[in-house]
């Protein structure tokens, strides 16, 4: 090991090594059942991320937000169809993985 951090458990198994990537939570926001919106996240500059939404207290007349990223901005978009389908409140997540 030339440099970096290596951690082992009590059995000697390597838990974290010098070349590992650790997925880190970067952002959570609860968005009510309104139209789409966006947020600028400076912590996303230069890194890869996974961005997604999970509905809260939904039922089968509710829909989930779509989430996309452009640069350091993530955008969430809702979906409605007539009287049948309307957006659920959603939790928006962003995780950094590099």
């Amino acid at each position: 090991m030339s440099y970096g951090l290596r951690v082992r458990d009590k059995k000697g198994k390597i838990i974290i090594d010098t070349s590992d990537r650790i997925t880190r939570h970067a952002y959570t926001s609860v968005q009510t059942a309104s139209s789409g919106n966006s947020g600028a996240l400076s912590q996303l500059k230069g890194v890869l991320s996974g961005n997604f939404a999970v509905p809260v207290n939904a039922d089968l007349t509710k829909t989930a937000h779509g989430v996309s990223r452009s640069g350091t901005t993530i955008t969430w978009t809702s979906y409605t169809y007539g009287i049948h389908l309307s957006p659920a409140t959603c939790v928006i997540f962003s995780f950094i993985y590099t």
Partner: protein
Amino acid sequence: MGYGLKIRNVNSELQIDDKYVNYVFNGQAGSFDVFGISTVALTTPSKYPPIALIQPTGGNDRVCGVFDYTYSSPNYTHIRFFSSQKFNLGSGTCPFNYRIYTVTDEMSTDAYGLRVKKADGRVVYDSGKNPFKILEVGIATVGVTYTHASHTSPYYIFSPWLSGIVGIRAGGQGPVYRLIVGLSKQSSTSVQPQSTAAAVLGVTNLDFSDFQGTTITLLVCDPNE
């Protein structure tokens, strides 16, 4: 950074610092093989929303996904999953595994290892806790197989579970189907988003259809068991 700890790997990618908190395995994992909704109660309800990873395990026309969280102020208390069979093929079950990850202020019971805390005392990293890892993020299209050749039998997060609605006149008056898109296992290195009929929302005298979209964001994950 005025003070604290920041650790990077050999590629200069940040591993640990005092800003980010990891989601770690909360000890809850299991399997379902049902048609409909399955509910898991969080052993420790929390003000922080949980993360659930899923792994569909069989039947290339069987679909599943995370449906929603149950929130009862001030805590998230349950996670609900949906599972079914591809639309037009019946009402079969879908077998899948799940694992749940949460933010916790509890420290591991390990006697040694590495533990890093934020200035406010919250645990940023604990070598005795297992965070999930994102291996790959891609865009998957409904009805098209997504292959992740470098990763075998992973777990997944996907978003959104796309919605659709279809009215079928059926010679007079017919049903209004509510569609939902879940994830179906195709092989140990591939999955496919597929639609299933989740409900009948009413009846109609018209033929119509509308869909939220045709693609989902797919996160291929290592559960770090």
